[in-house]
């Protein structure tokens, strides 16, 4: 229950109970049956249907030809003549006559942004969490509290100054852009001259992920048994060896939860994408593309819905296949941002 501490402690429980809904002890099944009523079930079923229908409508609309989709409600698709097509998808993936720019490159961009933006902060946070929990010094607790407190800073507060740092620099500090461009051999690939780059997105997402990641992982790592570390130290293992051989393998559940949460957070993010990607096809994520086509081609419902479905299918696959980790991570991180 205390696996990740804090709010997530409860969530741990939520996940376990969710996985085994009937594991409740003490209450006889007779009593349970007495309490349940058909009205309760009916209400739950109605809400469940209400909650699912809008998403279902999106899927159906995305499978209808443009003329019927723009003229009739999606629910009319279930009476003959059944009129379905995959044409919208082929149009929105590679671009067509209506929307010239397809979604495919943005889909790739979202992966290119999300995967490093989930892995790198995770490793940095895990290192910091170990350092704060097990390489203690006078200010360890103070630093941990400060990092914890940084969760109150909304991303909105960091956007303008960070943008300035990346493009113009802060006073004597040179622009990050220029620093990357001046790296020999790889500089121009990382941040093309006069072009856009994934680097600011990776850095910004890494920065914004750290307070929560360090907090959660610290809670987890601090709970690991003390004897483990003491024994390893007595055997002459360095902190670096301990980190790789003890901390890393033992933290896998916490790592998995946070990695999934962070991946989806970045995948679903619009604000950071809009601010740091500049909306170009080279680096902008899929959410920016969706917001754009929704604004420009909003009337082409059949295409916009197909695009939206492509964008949400990734989180939905993660959701249904990794629900255990997903719920734990998502709930633990629900105050982020």
């Amino acid at each position, binding site marked *: 229950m205390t696996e990740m*501490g*804090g*709010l997530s402690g*409860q*969530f741990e429980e*939520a996940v376990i*109970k*969710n996985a085994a*809904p009937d594991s*409740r002890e003490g209450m006889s099944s007779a009593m349970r049956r007495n309490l349940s009523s058909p009205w*309760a*079930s009916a209400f739950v079923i109605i*809400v469940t249907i209400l909650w*699912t*229908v*809008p998403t279902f409508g999106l899927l159906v609309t995305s499978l209808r030809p443009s003329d019927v989709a*723009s*003229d009739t*409600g*999606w629910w*009319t698709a279930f009476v003959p003549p059944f009129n379905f097509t995959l044409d919208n998808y082929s149009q929105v993936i590679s671009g067509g006559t209506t929307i010239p720019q397809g979604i495919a490159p943005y889909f*790739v961009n979202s*992966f290119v942004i999300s*995967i490093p933006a989930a892995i*790198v902060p995770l*490793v*940095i946070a895990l*290192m*910091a969490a170990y*350092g704060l929990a097990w*390489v203690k010094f006078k200010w360890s607790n103070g630093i941990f509290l400060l990092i914890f407190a*940084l969760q109150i*800073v*909304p991303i*909105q507060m960091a956007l*303008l100054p960070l943008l300035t740092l990346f493009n113009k620099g802060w006073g004597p500090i040179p622009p990050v852009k220029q620093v990357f461009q001046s790296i020999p051999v790889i500089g121009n*690939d990382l941040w093309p001259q006069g072009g856009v780059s*994934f680097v600011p997105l*990776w850095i*910004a997402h890494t*920065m914004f992920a*750290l307070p929560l990641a360090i907090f959660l992982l610290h809670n987890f790592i601090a709970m690991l048994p003390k004897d483990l570390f003491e024994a390893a130290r007595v055997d002459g293992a*360095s*902190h*670096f*060896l301990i980190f790789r051989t003890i901390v890393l393998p033992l933290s896998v559940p916490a790592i998995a939860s946070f990695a999934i949460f962070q991946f989806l957070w970045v995948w*679903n*993010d619009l*604000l950071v994408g809009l*601010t740091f990607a500049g909306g170009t096809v080279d680096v902008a994520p899929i*959410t920016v593309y969706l*917001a754009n086509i929704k*604004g420009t081609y909003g009337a082409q*419902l059949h295409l916009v819905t197909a695009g939206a479905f492509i964008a*949400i299918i990734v989180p939905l696959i993660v959701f249904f296949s990794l*629900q255990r980790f*997903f*719920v734990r991570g998502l*709930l633990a991180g629900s105050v982020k*941002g």
Partner: protein
Amino acid sequence: MNASKAGELIVGIVLTVCGIALFVTATKVALAAGWVLFFFGVLLIIFYLGAKTRGKVQTGMARLVFLGPAIILLVVGLVVPAILTTWGSFLDANGKKFVGLANYSWTFTTPDNWVFLRNTALWIIITPIFSTALGFFLALLMDRMRRESLPKSLIFMPMAISFVGASIIWTLVYEYRDPSVDANQVGLLSALVMKLGWANPPNWLLWEPWNNFLLMIIMIWIQTGFALVVLSAAIKAIPMDVTEAAMLDGATGWKLLTKVTVPMIRGTLVVVLTTIAIGVLKVFDIVYTMTNGNFGTQVLANEMYAQSFVQFDKGRGSALAVVLFLAVTPLIVYNVTQLRKEQQIR
């Protein structure tokens, strides 16, 4: 031991070189893979060098390597920007001239801005209360059901979807066709209310001030599952003997709920409410994609984005970010103290 350490160094160098090689191939995927490999390579080399040191030097090195990157990133990414934004909120649109509290007085005294201030207040009150109440009610009902996993999953599912995706999903619900011109309705809501006898429904998203509530429904759709899952766990955590004792004393239904269940999970209820409120304050995606703040639907977070990146008024944008920060802070502090209390009780 030595062989494995040397292996570490070799792996580190190989990863770094591979990373650099991938950068040069200049396809996007290679760039991402290169970034990750390069990061791990450099890390392994540093770890190799760090493990060579002994005693005090090693402890110092460990602190530097473990804490250094995180602290630098946090200072550069959050601490300094927060200070610069606060400072910027006292400067003019270009960040050149000191204007005192002008941006703040603009925020609160311009009649045009009262719309987004009012809307933000409405959002922050209605959305958390409604999501939490519905989630709580569902949790109570599901607690007594045999198959709760599927409905729970489906109601929780919107939390996995991006706000932009959710907006497009709900565009289909709110889509409007003038009934006098077009007999067929494409939007679900129009079709539904017309079936129920409302012959001439309004164009939903332009229908002030009710369009605000229609946008809030999207957020409620997303957050109810969160409330449901957390509160459901809290209800299940109530010790059986407490409920049984109350039932033996004759408590049933409403009484059991108000005298036992609600007091037992009060802390969790508060945490859910404040967590949703924090999310609501910061969310801008829904308003940005649905109406972009037009038709009287503007909220604080979207106004901040508009001032900063559309109007390019850095001063006002910064002031709005500070207002957001000040509004969120008490909620988070309260949220955290509640959590601490909860944990102590347990």
